[in-house]
């Protein structure tokens, strides 16, 4: 029997029962479609989280404040909420570290900001001149803070593009205008370039002021009367010296805080790759979870195929008997029924891929990034053809083993 004829016979048989064929195929369409969509959304989440982490700086080591963990029931505050890191720590790091590009102490807090009748609530970051280097930040117009302004605690501010849009309207030039942060007037001297990002990690919705000005006019001093910072970001010269720099940072900080063990210290030192891998492992788990739920629906679709094929074999017993009587061998019948199952899953898989693609496109319209790579499409095709073979095998075998005499008598 020729391959072409096998397809012809299978197609005719499937076309004879269009509704049933379509419904059975739907199971596979939904199965494959949801696998594609779920994996796409999972990978998209992973991609965007990684991109977000990358965009906050390169070769970055971050020192964050935290409550010293002592024996007993001490509660560790959220990162950056405690006041254990001081401006002096940052200055010491600047002096003592080698192999670094810049050190950037930061003091951030949310404030109500107003400008000519508009107002918004946004993150105000006290920064120094090292900030753009450490955080990969570029200036769109005007200039960033300079040493003079930091030294003098000048009341100047650099706006993120989103903040500029909110306060002054899109595309306007706010340089020279004044804004009020928590009641204090600041003069706008620059606007940063958009970096993208969304939600809590939106780096375009920020205002930068000299850290000294923030300490003096906005946040104030710590309970012990010291100028404190929420975190200190250090940018290493290149990826190779990351570990070395991280060790230096830890040593200097431990020494300054009179502590011996990083595990019980009142600060934490993290490097960026730790963050990336932590976030990746979370999203990977999420992707696997989503994909396995979708995989279950694929399995159900496969069982649907098997069910339909078994029904078909029973219904067409006489036809199978006739085909055998006029000279069909076991393998002819076997291939014919297997081909029917594979056509079902393959076509269903194809539609499923398109469907899953569409779902993830729609999802990205709602702000959920998704990302479909060709390996997952190929995999889906492979899996659906495989399901056809696995779930079509038993019914096809049953058909091929029918005794022609009994099959012809079957009522």
């Amino acid at each position, binding site marked *: *029997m020729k391959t072409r004829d096998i397809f012809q016979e299978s197609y005719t048989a499937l076309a*004879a029962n269009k509704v049933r064929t379509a419904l059975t195929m739907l199971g596979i369409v939904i199965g494959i479609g949801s696998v594609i969509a779920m994996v796409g959304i999972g990978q998209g989440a992973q991609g965007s989280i990684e991109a977000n982490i990358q965009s906050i700086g390169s070769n970055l080591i971050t020192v964050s404040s935290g409550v010293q963990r002592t024996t007993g029931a001490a509660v560790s505050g959220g990162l950056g909420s405690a006041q254990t890191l001081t401006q002096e720590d940052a200055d010491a790091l600047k002096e003592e570290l080698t192999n670094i590009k810049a050190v950037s102490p930061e003091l951030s807090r949310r404030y109500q900001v107003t400008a000519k009748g508009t107002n918004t609530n946004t993150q105000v970051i006290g920064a120094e001149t090292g900030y753009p280097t450490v955080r990969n930040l570029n200036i769109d117009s005007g200039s960033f803070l300079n040493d003079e302004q930091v030294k003098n605690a000048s009341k100047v501010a650099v706006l993120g593009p989103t903040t500029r849009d909110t306060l002054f309207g899109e595309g306007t030039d706010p340089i020279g205008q004044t804004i009020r942060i928590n009641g204090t007037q600041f003069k706008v001297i620059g606007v940063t370039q958009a970096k993208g990002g969304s939600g809590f990690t939106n780096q375009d919705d920020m205002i930068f002021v000299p850290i000294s000005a923030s300490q003096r006019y906005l946040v104030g001093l710590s309970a012990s009367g010291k100028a404190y910072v929420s975190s200190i970001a250090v940018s290493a010269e290149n990826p190779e010296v990351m570990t070395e720099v991280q060790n230096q940072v830890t040593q200097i900080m431990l020494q300054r805080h009179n502590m011996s063990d990083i595990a019980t210290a009142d600060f934490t030192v993290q490097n960026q790759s730790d963050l990336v891998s932590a976030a990746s492992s979370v999203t990977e788990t999420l992707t696997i979870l989503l994909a396995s739920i979708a995989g279950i629906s694929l399995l159900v679709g496969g069982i649907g195929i098997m069910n339909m094929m078994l029904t078909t074999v029973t219904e067409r017993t006489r036809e199978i008997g006739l085909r055998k009587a006029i000279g069909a061998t*076991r393998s002819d019948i076997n291939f014919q029924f297997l081909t029917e199952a594979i056509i079902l899953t393959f076509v269903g898989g194809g539609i499923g891929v398109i469907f899953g693609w569409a779902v993830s496109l729609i999802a990205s319209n709602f702000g959920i990034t998704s990302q479909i790579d060709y390996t997952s499409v190929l995999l889906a095709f492979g899996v659906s053809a495989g399901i056809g073979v696995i779930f079509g095998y038993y019914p096809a075998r049953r058909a091929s083993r029918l005794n022609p005499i009994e099959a012809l008598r079957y009522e």
Partner: protein
Amino acid sequence: MIECQNIYKTYVNGDVETKVLKDVSFTIKDGEFVAIMGPSGSGKSTMMHILGALDTPSKGKYILDGQDVSTLTDDELAVIRRQKIGFVFQSFNLLPRATVLRNVALPLVYAGIDNMEREELAKKASLQAGLDESRFYHLSNQLSGGQMQRVAIARALVNNPTLLLADEPTGNLDTKTGDIVLGTFQRLNDQGHTIILITHEPYVARHADRIIQIRDGQILSDEENKDKKIFNSDSDEN
């Protein structure tokens, strides 16, 4: 040439052994028109299955065209059926929702003959079976009983078999259409086809040249049919 030598067929169902055929021997020469007759339970159906290479005897030899068929495997039997045997069943067994030509050409699909040649051979066989050309592209379930049986006959002829086996071919037809179908068999026999007709009706058997009567798994009589009934008309009924 068909030779059956001391054929036995026994079915075993649990502890019960049923001897369906007991030492049956006969020879049918090429071009003969033979009716195998017997009441139900006589073993004539089993005989037909063996002659049609659907089944093998428990003991004895069945030689078709000089080849011993009695010891072949299922798939080898399938090849014999596709090359040498044409079946006509009581209930037609056509593929519904398929055209006349597609039904007729079906055995050629399994013989691996390509599309163009299939259509040619199917048209030829359909004309031979007395089907009108205007019906070639009708769906098989839109035809009358007599026409359906002609399609089945054409399907049996299409691979130019050594042996045409008809199992109660008129059982589902009224007398008039039955007669016409039997006339078709006679005409095919005149053209040189070897035909074996399996029936329980003496009236149907009377159309053959030779009648073999089977009772309880054995041959009761095997003689020439002296008052053969002959039809002249062989027109397509509507």
